[in-house]
């Protein structure tokens, strides 16, 4: 079972839900933080990092002695990562999307592969929980290839919980595509509702079963609940605004550490997800 925790708007409580859910379940759980631009789950889990590797993507390196300035590579590159000015050929590795086109078309075999660092991938453990996340290098623009690397850590057995980045564009899609369930975390405010609608459109486009957690449920207006009712979106958990929760979060503590009675609610949340996924599977079967 792979569950992605997503939300259009940032700061609604994705990491809170992902970490508390991961540590509440009795089964074998893997928590993968795919918000590689701003990974936060480790701050609450404090895993022991066992393995760290640098992740790179292939970018061209041009042998100027072999290059005849024929411009075939310039022509195939849609990302303008290679240009010729006068008698000089220049590459812009940060613009390269690693399609490999330039290497294929170069008639002189003057282009070889070198690496551009995307960031690091770290793997670790906390008690029985397996943990993995990526940290995008500061200055690097492309998050999706690193997100794919983090997802490649997922093991087929047990439960995999993915903490997704905010938004609705390519990084989020990379973090939710093909999962069994998307749990959307929102807050009952106009911003929360507006971005939730976008996120729902995205998961519908991908055809993924989904449900809702409303965080700080008593702080805003009724818009989110009305929308959920109208769309038939199941509300699987409501977390009230509680200064104890906010303060615990501020110190890097989990809700279930501060208020152990919440563990039961996260287990129930998981059971509701299991039920929905089972129903969908039956419907398809």
């Amino acid at each position: 079972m792979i569950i992605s925790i997503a939300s259009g708007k940032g700061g609604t409580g994705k990491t809170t839900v992902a970490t508390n859910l991961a540590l509440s379940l009795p089964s074998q759980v893997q928590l993968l933080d795919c918000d590689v631009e701003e990974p936060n789950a480790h701050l609450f889990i404090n895993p022991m990092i066992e393995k760290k590797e640098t992740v790179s993507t292939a970018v061209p390196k041009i042998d100027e002695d072999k290059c005849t300035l024929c411009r075939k590579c310039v022509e195939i590159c849609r990302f303008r990562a290679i240009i010729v000015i006068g008698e000089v050929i220049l590459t812009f590795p940060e613009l390269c999307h690693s399609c490999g086109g330039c290497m294929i078309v170069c008639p002189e075999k003057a282009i070889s592969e070198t690496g551009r660092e995307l960031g690091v991938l770290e793997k670790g453990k906390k008690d029985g929980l397996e943990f993995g996340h990526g940290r995008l290098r500061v200055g690097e623009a492309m998050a999706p290839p690193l997100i794919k690397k983090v997802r490649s850590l997922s093991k087929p057995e047990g439960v995999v919980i993915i903490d997704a980045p905010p938004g609705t564009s390519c990084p989020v899609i990379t973090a939710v595509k093909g999962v069994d369930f998307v749990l959307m975390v929102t807050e009952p405010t106009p911003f929360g509702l507006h971005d939730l609608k976008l996120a729902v459109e995205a998961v519908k486009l991908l055809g993924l079963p989904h449900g809702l957690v409303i965080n700080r449920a008593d702080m805003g207006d009724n818009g989110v609940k009305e929308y959920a009712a109208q769309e038939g979106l199941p509300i699987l958990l409501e977390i009230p605004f509680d200064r104890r929760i906010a303060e615990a979060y501020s110190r890097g503590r989990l809700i279930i550490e501060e208020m152990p009675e919440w563990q039961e609610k996260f287990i129930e949340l998981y059971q509701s997800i299991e039920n929905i996924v089972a129903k969908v599977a039956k419907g398809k079967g």
Partner: protein
Amino acid sequence: MKELVILSGKGGTGKTSLTAAFAALSENSILCDADVDAADLHLLMNPEIKERTDFQGGGIAVIDPDKCTSCGTCRELCKYEAISEDFKVDEIECEGCGVCVDLCPEQAIDFPIKTCGQWFISETRFGPMVHARLGIAEENSGKLVALVRQQARAMAAEKDLSLLITDGPPGIGCPVIASIGGATAMLIVTEPTVSGKHDMERVVDLANHFKVPGMVCVNKYDLNIDQTEAIENSAKEKGITVLERVPFDPAFTKAMIQGKTLIEYDPGSKVSQIIKGIWEEVGKKLESNMSQ
């Protein structure tokens, strides 16, 4: 013309609420929403759209089944595994590199330009605003951010406006990088939590990497004073100006529900006064950065 970009790293720290309050306090300015992925500023600005333009992203591969001989060349070449066994292109996976288009021996692959969003020029009660909406699950968010900023700058020049206020996206990746190049200064809005601190530090590193002068403001500071101090110390160590703190105040949410900026909701409140003070400081910082 000066440009202030408001960022946070972490989402939900109050970027957009503060941007809107600044819009209410500023004169002779133009607004730009560079969070094209989950834009919210328009919910407080109620913009009247004057011009609406399609945003053309890159091309996307489309295989013509009549010409395709199923030779498999495209599947071998595609680094993104975007072509299925029955030779259909997965639009979400296709990166738009065009390698298959150029190298298909049958020339069976088209490369139509995809419309992947819209951008708008609008009028608001606080002046003009340039904003956009990226289509769901689309790429090229950085390109669209660069475009709305460029349009906002052009309009500022045309109307002789002296300040561009840009509401930035969360994170530190492609759309954020596109939103900060060439800005006069950036203001990082954070919150006193372990995540707020961690994410603020990464945005500060990004600011330093691209040599954009930064300021930090801790919102909801009274949720954890120790964290607030830790954030401010960390920012100072990294050479970033620290602004006055903003207290936690439910008025932010109440104003949002009414579609108002905090300044309009309750101009005389303490939090409005604090934001006015911050805005004056930001103005001075922008002036001094410009003269440098």
